[in-house]
């Protein structure tokens, strides 16, 4: 963890909001859970993306359930962003805004 724990604190704060947001999506979560549980019954076979439609619904509900003070990572910002087709999770904490050169060192700060 970094010296003052700023990044860790920020990421952990986002994670703390997860239970609340998940609670708002009870129906979608239950549908996804039922789909996965059905595959564990005898005769079922769990493969990748077996329950992809249910999970997509859950993910959209989860993203929409973000509270107002949230950062744009994996929240409402995902819908308008040009990278909205990107499906891998962004929880490394790296900013998703494309890098824009701000100032050169020559000009001072």
């Amino acid at each position: 963890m970094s010296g003052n724990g700023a990044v860790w604190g920020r990421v952990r704060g986002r994670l703390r909001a997860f239970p609340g947001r998940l609670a708002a999506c009870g129906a979608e979560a239950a549908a996804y859970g039922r789909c996965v549980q059905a595959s564990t019954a005898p005769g079922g076979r769990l493969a990748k993306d077996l329950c992809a439609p249910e999970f997509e619904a859950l993910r959209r509900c989860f993203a929409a359930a973000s509270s107002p003070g949230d950062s744009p990572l994996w929240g409402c910002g995902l819908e308008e962003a040009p990278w909205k087709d990107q499906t891998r999770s962004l929880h490394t904490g790296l900013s998703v805004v494309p890098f824009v050169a701000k100032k050169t060192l020559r000009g001072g700060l």
Partner: protein
Amino acid sequence: MQRLGRLWLLWRRPPAAGVAAKNLGLREVASGVSPPGSTSPRALNIFDRDMKRKQKNWAARQPEPMKFDYLKEAVGSQIADRVYDITRNFSLALDVGCGRGYIAQHLNKETVGKFFQVDIAENALKNTLEMEIPTVSVLADEEFLPFKENTFDLVVSSLSLHWVNDLPRALEQIHYVLKPDGVFIGAMFGGDTLYELRCSLQLAETEREGGFSPHVSPFTAVNDLGHLLGRAGFNTLTVDTDEIQVNYPGMFELMEDLQGMGESNCAWNRKALLHRDTMLAAAAVYREMYRNEDGSVPATYQIYYMIGWKYHDSQARPAERGSATVSFGELGKINNLMSQGKKSQ
């Protein structure tokens, strides 16, 4: 037991010459290779003890450590009960993997004269709970106890042996430092611990990512525990199991509590990353498959309590073959036999 994803930014320095880029940040799996000079060729290197020490230090440094203490308190008081059950006073006792001293706080000065607290995390030893027995804190690894042979009357260990790499050796060490007619009372997590979390993560990871990696550490089976204690030299073994079920609002709270207890995963083969998609899917599966009526989700902790004695001549031994004076066929007349025995005394 559970690592909650990678939570820190990494700006990687350019790799040193000769280091393949794909190996950056990946831990090397050391499997099945014992360090030179080790006395047990069967030693495995499953857990990263250095990381476990860091995790326990971090957990002990939290602003509210008592928030996560409930499980260790419960098991610590159970072990103290078992110590009281033995009608003996112990002048010198040792607590292996003591944490903040959950066992010692329940015992009194008459039962235990002096307590040695051993742990690998110095922060836990610095923040010990209040206890009336005089204690000495020693920073040591459970597998390398720095004590002489035949030192302690009593050795206790509560919920820390499931992180040792070489459990046979640790038990042999405990047997070594015990005095003859000394007793070892231990508690370890058993095979069914956190099976709900393990299954939910497996299913979610398979569905989301196409495969899964272990997130809950492997536990000892109860049969193996008896064999291990016997092989270490203990006599008169007793092993019994207990299941504690704790209800949580959801999977995320459970994982946060596990991390706060210092029980995060530290196996070498752990995956460094747990994707948010997988976490979300696992929480949904956990809730759907295991929830209670009131909406909370249970987590099972299966505890094995074990008692073993170090051999001493005064201990009861099985009788010699051929020394029987009555036969089993006379079991129906046992009342007559007993009253005859009383008359002859």
